[in-house]
């Protein structure tokens, strides 16, 4: 009897955990970015400090979203790659990084839409790690580039 009650309690707990996880793990079709490990992320305020620092390695900044968004505003010094989910974007990524040492500090960013729906950053992160890069970070933009970078007053460049 005690064993049965314990089993029932465990089943209920597992069920609740499963429900809870389903609530916070978004639909895979739109939630790829959320599956990135926290260790792969860099917060905007942290990146700003890195970029402003007089010492330390500066990252290669790669925008992996839309060119139309990049042209309106991007992080100064960043390069446009585009969506690596298409051939052109993947070729551009290779052009940017193929000759680089695999320990090169690289930061990817997009900011097209809310983090939970961004389809662009994880494929790019996966691609770089698949190429052997070990020092890659993804800029965490909770809402979009406008709200989480531009509107915060962080450095911005416009145009090509």
């Amino acid at each position: 009897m005690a064993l049965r009650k314990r089993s029932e309690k465990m089943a209920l707990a597992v069920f609740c955990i499963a429900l809870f996880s389903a609530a916070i793990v978004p639909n895979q079709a739109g939630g790829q970015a959320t599956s990135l490990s926290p260790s792969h992320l860099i917060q905007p305020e942290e990146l700003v400090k890195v970029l402003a620092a007089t010492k330390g390695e500066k990252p290669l900044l790669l925008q992996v979203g839309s060119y139309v968004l990049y042209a309106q505003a991007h992080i100064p010094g960043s390069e446009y790659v585009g969506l690596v989910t298409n051939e052109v974007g993947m070729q551009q990524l290779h052009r940017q990084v193929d000759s680089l040492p695999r320990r090169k500090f690289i930061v990817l960013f997009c900011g097209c839409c809310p983090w939970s729906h961004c389809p662009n950053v994880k494929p790019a992160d996966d691609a770089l790690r698949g190429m052997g890069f070990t020092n890659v970070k993804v800029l965490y933009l909770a809402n979009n580039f406008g709200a989480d970078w531009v509107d915060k007053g962080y450095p911005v460049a416009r145009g090509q």
Partner: protein
Amino acid sequence: MAILLVAGFFYIAAHRHGGTGGGTALQLHSAAPDFSLPELNGQPLQLSDYRGKVVLLDFWATWCDPCREETPHLVELQNKYRDQGLQIIGVSMDDTPEPVRDFYRHFQMNYPVVLGNARIGELYGGVLGLPIAFVISREGRIFTKHIGATDISVLERDVRTLL
């Protein structure tokens, strides 16, 4: 502990998509910047040609999941209020037209879609996240601006106010 987990589930489920209005509504009342951009068929579309109609100007892209989710609702809204003077115009922020054409056919879109660029993004205050929707009055003034996924009932409310 189990009750807390279940309670947490219901709380998060209720707020997961931003509740009743995930976007930021901004009533500007300024004149909507006029523009001329090519539709998918290459013909130019001039915003000012729609003066006298209520215009819902929707910035979106094919790879944007919230945009994909809202599209069928916008198609329904266009059908529902077309005769009363609603005109939805989609501004695709895709880099090339090919995926836009595929998307247009797949979703059987019933309103014009133009190919956007950085210039129109700047004209409309910076389109630095998608989707962004502007509801524009018959007189050509911006009534509301919604940033991010917005419940269709919110957009419908704005449209009905102006019709």
